[in-house]
């Protein structure tokens, strides 16, 4: 290699490094100034167009929409949770920012399941997404039931969809008669487990009861078809355990407050009074929070916020 060609090589390498660095810098600069986005940016096409547009690759397109739905749901619920736990965030009625929207979630799940009408996980997991209360999800149990009923058109033999419909009626809508009917219809199908029939009876008689809720979540965890669904069910079971623990702790705190004639503001007061031997922790190991004499789970805990139990709230 002579001096001239070596020089041009060095110049080329230098140029690549220089422009490479410039490109990275520009990339980072652009990332720090995101453009305003709209939910309408998500491609929404009709069922027919979705099927026609991808020729023979319908399953692959369904997978892509499913991945998009997971990402959409995950990112939206994360932002909503962060806002909910932000101590400086004003209540929604005073906030200048609009609430986090989940508007496109059903559309994405609908397209995915239209392209692949037997996409079992998209129906079952998608229904959990849709029914989850804000900030975890859009709080649309009606759409969750619609999605599961769509699944039954293609796979009427699957008792799992009736089980999930019953679950949504029970946990999210607190409509125990409909929940019981759905469990019963699932139980009538060949291959359905024996406990679905007893669940139908229990739901009707003891709707809203915490033990029934626990039974329901335990069975959902046991019949879950992926780790994430099982994890979500286990979280709900731990939340129910936390509610049990809080109900046992609260009378102890109230008793100390009554004895000292002032509200208990820290765990130390209870430890010094000998009412507790250690700072209580929720089932995940996170310390409970004591605020104005009331016990709640910490906002740092994966159990936050605790669910509204079916039996403890008025029926919609």
């Amino acid at each position, binding site marked *: 290699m002579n001096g001239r060609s070596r020089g041009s090589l060095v110049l080329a390498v230098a140029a690549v490094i220089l422009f490479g660095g410039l490109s990275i810098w520009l990339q980072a600069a652009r990332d720090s100034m995101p453009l305003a986005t709209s939910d309408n940016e998500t491609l929404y096409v009709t069922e027919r167009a979705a099927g026609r547009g991808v020729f023979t690759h319908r399953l692959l397109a*369904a997978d892509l929409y499913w991945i998009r739905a*997971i990402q959409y749901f995950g990112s939206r619920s994360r932002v909503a949770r962060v806002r909910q736990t932000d101590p400086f965030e004003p209540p929604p009625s005073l906030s200048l920012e609009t609430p986090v929207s989940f508007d496109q979630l059903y559309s994405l799940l609908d397209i995915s399941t239209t392209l692949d009408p037997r996409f079992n996980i998209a129906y079952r997991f998608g229904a959990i997404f849709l029914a989850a209360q804000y900030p975890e999800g859009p709080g649309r149990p009606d759409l969750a039931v619609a999605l599961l009923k769509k699944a039954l058109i293609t796979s009427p033999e699957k008792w799992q969809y009736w089980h999930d419909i019953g679950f949504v009626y029970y946990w999210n809508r607190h409509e125990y008669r409909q929940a019981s009917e759905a469990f019963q219809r699932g139980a009538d199908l060949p291959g359905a487990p024996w406990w679905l029939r007893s669940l139908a009876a229990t739901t009707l008689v003891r709707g809203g009861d915490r033990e029934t809720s626990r039974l329901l979540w335990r069975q959902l965890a046991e019949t879950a078809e992926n780790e994430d669904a099982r994890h979500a069910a286990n979280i709900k079971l731990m939340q129910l355990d936390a509610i049990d623990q809080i109900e046992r702790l609260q009378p102890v705190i109230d008793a100390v407050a009554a004895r000292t004639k002032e509200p208990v503001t820290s765990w130390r007061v209870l430890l010094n009074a000998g009412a507790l031997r250690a700072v209580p922790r929720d089932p995940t190991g996170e310390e409970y929070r004591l605020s104005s004499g009331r016990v709640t789970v910490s906002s740092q805990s994966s159990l936050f916020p605790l669910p509204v139990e079916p039996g403890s709230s008025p029926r919609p």
Partner: protein
Amino acid sequence: MKTLGWIAINGFREAVRDKVMYSLVAFAVLLIVASYIVGELTAGQDVKITKDLGLSAIGIFGLFMAIFIGIGLVSKEVERRSIYSLLAKPIRRSDLVIGKYLGLVLTLVVNVAVMTAALYLVLAYLGTEESDLARQAREAPLLDPALLKAVGLMLVQLMVVTATALFFSTFSTPILSAVLTFLVYVAGFFSADLRNFDQVVDSRVVQALARGLYYMLPNLASFDVTAQVVHGLPITWRYMAVTTAYGLTYITILLVMSATIFSRRDFK
């Protein structure tokens, strides 16, 4: 027969020389990278999605091969003027067309076989990492032999597309042949709609025309059984046999027309 074999083998060698096999490397890389990524994104659906992606990729790679090599089978010989030395040999023109076709089919078979083997390998790897829960929830076996049914019919579909590309290339330019083949490919997926035209159109003439087109165009959608395979649904051997026979019949018609046109073509 010997001549046909000789032309086919040479066609295969030419495809290897043209670095067609590089597509296999691209396929393997795509599949391995995708299987790593989808595992993180899909809530336990990595096996299903890898099967979907693998089968789709085999179809797409095969389609590109079928169209772009298919249209060049004859036109390249004309362009390079090697057609004159070929025609000077004691070879029938029809043998040349059919031999070239068989060469490309051999290339497709080898490519599809290697891609299928790669898909099974990736699935076997995913199996080692699969949780008990995911294993129980799967609708079809991990290394499902039924995947071969989907791949087999896909291969017949690609053979139909190759024959179509070859047919168009016997009388038109390479670009026009590619466009026409692609249009037939698209129409082939919608041909079932033509059958049901009488439900949306009142005119008897249009209905008859649509019905005629339905039988004239290749029904490519019937070769697609990936949804059934991925969801563990049954595909009968009778369906396989009838669909394969349909494909082979269609190919025969196209080859006869291609050979006839090529035999009458004037290369002066």
